[in-house]
């Protein structure tokens, strides 16, 4: 096959081009690494929110409150201050304050609750007791915990207030004209789902990024080197030349796609997803499904880049045009972000939108219908052939060959 002569030569050249190889290897590693870290962060936060431990100074002075906190799943950790071991109850003794703050700054504690010695007395006299929550608000880990503790203390306060009112024959409703119940539908699970939604985005981007260096080099690069004219002097049809060059870029793009998928699945399998209640099993069928979905993109993306590359006079020119085309893979991502409609059959014919939705289905663990697969794949194939045909036509233009 004559086109394979061209493909082999372009591949030999590309493999020797360190820049093209870097683009091929770097991008596929980036996405999965990001996903891995994001998941681990979410899981960390999820784990800690369920298991809040609270360092308390003077826990013995507020039995009732401490019981209430423990009943609500807080682990109380009694802390004795070196500066004030028996805790005199003087809040603002500078030595005690310093010790607390140093402990927080040194990350011995993320936060600390300080209860005064006269807490129970004040409460039983129906007065207001001041307790202090010392925290470092810029520390991301302490914020949700401190929030939870504050909420519980407020809850205890309201219960106590209600009891006081009832003791005086007043309905607690008097001081609660409105009561708000917050129901958070966004579980950890749905948060994880929204991150899984990035996976298709990275895969589609990989199709565009991994073959781009080669696609530009074999077209605009050839024009810039002034080697196009002598190539066209050989008795080889233009479409054969374009197909040969296209195939070299397709190979790079396909390798990038497979790499990004393997790494994505690997990084997902390394994350303890079951801890946040997600079942993500990847079987042979899913992998085949994803490959069938995305491989047509490895044909489409380079065909667009070859077309644009022939049009461009120089490497720089081509990169300027193609950075605009890089917006293309982002389009379906944003469309789906704001799209409230259900999936419709016509969407399969929109290049990349179809693949994006199929991938999203597969990642979510659903199996899309076979016609969707076939139509999206065929649509991508037809579009790439249109671009290859257009590129062959461009290569016949005298203004393109000589300029």
């Amino acid at each position, binding site marked *: 096959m*004559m086109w394979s*002569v*061209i493909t082999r*030569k372009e591949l*030999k*050249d590309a493999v*020797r*081009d360190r820049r093209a190889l870097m683009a091929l290897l770097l991008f596929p590693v980036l996405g999965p690494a990001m996903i891995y870290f994001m998941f681990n962060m979410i899981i960390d936060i999820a784990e800690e929110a369920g298991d809040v431990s609270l360092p308390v100074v003077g826990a013995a002075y507020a039995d009732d409150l401490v019981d209430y906190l423990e009943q609500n799943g807080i682990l109380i950790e009694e802390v004795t201050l070196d500066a004030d071991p028996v805790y005199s109850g003087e809040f603002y003794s500078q030595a005690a304050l310093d010790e607390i703050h140093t402990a927080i700054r040194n990350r011995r504690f993320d936060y600390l609750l300080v209860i005064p010695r006269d807490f129970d007395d004040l409460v039983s006299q129906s007065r207001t007791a001041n307790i202090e929550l010392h925290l470092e608000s810029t520390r991301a880990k302490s914020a949700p915990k401190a929030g939870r503790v504050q909420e519980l203390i407020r809850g205890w306060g309201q219960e106590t207030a209600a009891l006081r009112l009832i003791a005086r024959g007043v309905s607690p409703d008097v001081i609660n004209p409105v009561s708000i119940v917050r129901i958070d539908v966004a579980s950890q699970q749905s948060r994880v789902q929204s991150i899984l939604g990035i996976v298709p985005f990275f895969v589609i981007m990989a199709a565009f990024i991994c073959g781009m260096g080669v696609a530009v080099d074999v077209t605009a690069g050839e024009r810039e*080197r*002034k*080697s*196009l*004219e*002598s*190539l*066209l*002097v*050989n*008795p*080889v*049809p233009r479409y054969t030349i374009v197909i040969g060059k296209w195939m070299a870029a397709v190979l790079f793009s396909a390798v990038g796609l497979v790499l990004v998928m393997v790494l994505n699945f690997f990084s997902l399998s390394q994350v303890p997803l079951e801890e946040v209640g997600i079942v993500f099993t990847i079987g042979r069928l899913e992998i085949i499904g994803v490959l069938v979905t995305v491989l047509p993109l490895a044909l489409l993306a380079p065909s667009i880049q070859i077309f644009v590359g022939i049009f461009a006079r120089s490497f720089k020119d081509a990169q300027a045009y193609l950075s605009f085309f890089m917006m293309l893979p982002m389009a379906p991502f944003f469309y789906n972000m704001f799209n409230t409609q259900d999936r419709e059959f016509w969407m399969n014919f929109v290049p990349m939108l179809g693949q994006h939705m199929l991938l999203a289905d597969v990642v979510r663990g659903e199996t899309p219908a076979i016609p969707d697969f076939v139509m999206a794949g065929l649509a991508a194939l037809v579009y790439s052939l249109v671009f290859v045909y257009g590129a062959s036509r461009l290569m016949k233009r*005298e203004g393109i*060959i*000589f300029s």
Partner: protein
Amino acid sequence: MIEVRHLTKQFKNIVAVEDASFSVRDGAITGLLGHNGAGKSTTLRILYGLLKANSGTALIDGIDVMASPLKAQAVIGVMTDAHGLNPRLTAREHIEYFARLRGMQRHQMTKRIDELVALLDMSDIADRRAEGFSQGEKMKVCLCRSLVHDPQNLIMDEPTNGLDVMTTRSVRSILQKLKAENKCILLSSHIMQEISALCDEIVVIAEGRVLMQGTLDDLAKKTGEGDLEEAFMQITRTA
């Protein structure tokens, strides 16, 4: 054997070649002589099938270039004026690439390339990457790949442009050898010395028109000038 009949090529509003006719015979070196911008490159580009003439015909070994460019390209070897090489491929890889594009088999190709490498005295650069090749080295690679399929017809655009004396001489001796093998050789140049040292036949071209075709003696007889430069000046002036 190359036949050019009433060739005209127009770019937008510039007429680059106008009603040009000449012939190039086998077993001779024919020079297309003209100033820069006289239409030499355009004529050659039509002959090797990359430009379409507006009217007229060009025949190479009887094959109409405009009607079947691929067939015509199969029987010619071409050296374009741009000697662009791929910096990451070796000289041998460049030549192999073109040999394969011409459908040569490995055995035949390797033998032929070894021959050419010896002939052009380029064994020192054959397996080096083209990055940093001198003008002369690049030109040798280009000449090699235009000869790899042993074409009957050779078209060269300004082949000795910018070359040192040594390389120029080796190119000349190769052309003489090809001529002795009864090949048909057409080259363009604007350098009088080059043409008078090398060519059996001269086609004088100016402003896209062929003013005269003949041997050096024919030109001298017609103009009464013994020196090619003087003869050329006189022909182009009277036109």
